[in-house]
């Protein structure tokens, strides 16, 4: 941020007199606003795509009335939610009730800071990138639990308790499944992880093809990520048919919209992490994105990254519309008895492999023969 602020001050003579800290702050605010707009737009467009994909899979047309092919449906939904009456139940805990959606959204949105969108396009390349994401996305648990408790509704309470149990239980498999990528890169920083893949090997530089254990780890991560973002088959906290919408049953209007948007933001986070850690991030196949002239490197890498992340999001939607829901004890059993041991064994396997082959993956070994 500071470097960018300095560059701007040097480029535009009118800003020369402004103190550096003010400029840095301004740049930070602008970047935050850009990310917020991206998150909200993704929430809206994501909901439209979700409904269209649902329609395709279910042999029907999705929304197609508002705008050409129904593209403006999410705007209509947004306007409707804003205009709805704001109902707070009589005996609800007002402060917690009002605070909960914002906590959930902050928990999801704060992770946007370390998503590597492209070459040099990252809000802040923290050297604890992955660790930071894991920590910050755990905030949603508090928000959901607050929402469940403060609603003064037994169904909401059940939904909140289930969500707490679920998200906390699946944090471990998510973290352990991301470790192979960290081990291969040798750093927790997101940009380092992305840079450790790709290069001239193109597609085969991706972590997912590095060794069989990382291949397995990708699918484990995907399953745990589906659970982290409350998608079917792990959508018990908001199981429509059992809990009548679970923890957000008493929310209406813009508060409900916040829960909804944070669910999509969460989906994007886990998809972006999958793309960055396993699918080569912003590497353009068979090109060196960092070497491309001027702004082309940035734009192309941004496009590639978004395509990969959105592909993972589509995959999550596809799984969502196919599978039924797990019961809460089966979900816990799956996490603790299947996912956790498998991810640990996986981590052990990756460590052994890296030790044996000195950090080289299968494509690199094959390439070194020639």
């Amino acid at each position, binding site marked *: 941020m500071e470097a960018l602020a300095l560059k701007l001050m040097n480029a535009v003579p009118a800003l020369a007199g402004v103190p550096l800290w003010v400029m840095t702050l301004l740049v930070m605010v602008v970047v935050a606003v850009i990310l917020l707009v991206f998150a909200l737009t993704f929430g809206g467009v994501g909901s439209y795509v979700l409904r269209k994909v649902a329609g395709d*899979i279910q042999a029907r047309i999705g929304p197609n009335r508002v705008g050409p092919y129904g593209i403006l449906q999410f705007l209509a939904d947004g306007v409707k939610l804003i205009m709805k009456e704001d109902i707070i139940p009589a005996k609800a805990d007002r402060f917690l009730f009002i605070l909960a959606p914002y906590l959930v959204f902050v928990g999801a949105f704060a992770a946007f800071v370390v998503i590597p969108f492209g070459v040099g396009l990252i809000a802040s390349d923290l050297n604890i990138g992955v660790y930071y994401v894991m920590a910050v996305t755990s905030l949603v648990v508090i928000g959901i639990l607050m929402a469940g408790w403060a609603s003064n509704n037994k169904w909401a309470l*059940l939904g909140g308790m289930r969500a707490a149990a679920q998200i906390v239980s699946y944090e471990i498999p998510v973290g352990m499944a991301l470790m192979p990528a960290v081990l291969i890169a040798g750093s927790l920083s997101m940009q380092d992880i992305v840079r450790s893949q790709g290069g001239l090997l193109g597609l085969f530089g991706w972590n997912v093809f590095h060794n069989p254990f990382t291949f397995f780890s990708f699918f484990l991560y995907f399953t745990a990520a589906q659970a982290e973002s409350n998608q079917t088959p792990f959508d018990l906290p908001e199981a429509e*048919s*059992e809990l*009548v919408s679970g923890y957000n049953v008493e929310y209406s209007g813009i508060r409900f919209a916040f829960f909804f948007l944070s669910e999509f933001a969460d989906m994007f986070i886990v998809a972006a992490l999958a793309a960055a850690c396993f699918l080569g991030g912003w590497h353009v196949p068979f090109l060196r994105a960092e070497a491309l002239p001027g702004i082309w490197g940035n734009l192309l890498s941004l496009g590639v990254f978004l395509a990969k992340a959105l592909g993972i999001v589509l995959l999550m939607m596809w799984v969502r519309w196919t*599978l039924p*829901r797990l019961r*809460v004890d089966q979900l816990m059993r799956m996490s603790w008895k299947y996912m956790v041991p498998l991810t640990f064994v996986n981590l052990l396997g990756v460590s052994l492999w890296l030790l044996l082959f000195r950090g080289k993956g299968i494509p690199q070994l094959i390439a070194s023969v020639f």
Partner: protein
Amino acid sequence: MTRPAEALPTQEMLINMGPQHPSTHGVLRVLLRTDGEVVVNARPDVGYLHRGLEKIGERVTYAQFMPFTDRLDYLAAMNCNCAYAWAVEKLAGIEVPERAEYIRVIVSELNRISSHLIAFGSFTADMGAFTPFLYSIREREIVNDLFESVCGNRLTYNYARIGGVSADLPPGFLEKTKEFLDYFEPKIDEYNNLISYNKIFVHRLANVAVISAKDAVAYGLTGPNLRGSGVKFDLRRDEPYSVYPKLEFDVCVGTGERGALGDCFDRYMVRINEMRQSIRILRQAVAQIPEGPVMAKVPRLFKPAAGEVYFRSECPRGETGFYIISDGTTNPSRLKIRTGSFVSMNIFETVTKGLMIADIVAVIGSFDIILPEIDR
């Protein structure tokens, strides 16, 4: 160091799975007392849809009551129409022409297929898989089109009459039925691949709410609920009526293929297999149907002799029995209806002890209840 149990007081929750709930298949209220997620007691509270059909039966004539039987189980209206017609014909000793009997069997079995499709679709939707519901509705629309061409309505048919059926089949109906059967048979395999044998679905249903054969008979369960516990009893085979003796089909029972015998999965699979058997019956009936009249000669002012009759027939949700007392006038003196869903509520409280809340939904779905049948 373990904390003594008294130091940490816990309380049971009394949750109202109220009349308005996405998964109770109607206006059913279940009072749940739970210890966290585990159910201690689940008491069903029915009556939210009571319309006094049996009282209406005493007020209208025999012929006028036919449209009300549509609203008894609206997803299997043909079956209820025919059951009532057979009951009154048994009371008055009326002989129905053979073509009419074949037509009744054809529409009953088609309606069995469409009713089981709804049972399948809504059950999987309750379990969280939203897609199969849409597919089953699509299939059902074709059956609705067939029924519309026969009697003019898509849900409340009022097709059977005392002495036969109201109108003959339109030209092309039998061909269209055969087309539907050819189209639909592979779809059952598709549903099995998509959801029936999916590991998550199986795990939700296996070993949940196991009802032993002895219990099933003791509590008076009927239909697929009874057969899911392994009891090979089907009214079409064991107390045959109409032209069922001339038709070949297997009685589907639960086999405990994915868990204990008599669990939710068995009841679910019995319905899927019954759809296949219905297709078999339909193919035979469509081939065997003779020409002839479709209505017997019944006096305009229909006054059956004084007496009483109980007739039961195999409807998709169990046994629908009509107990009619006639006093020789144009209106029944007492018209009592016994339905399969009502007796399923009998065993609900016993079988849900110790289950989790998510399993309550599975149990309601596996019993395939429909509230108008329970509440009449």
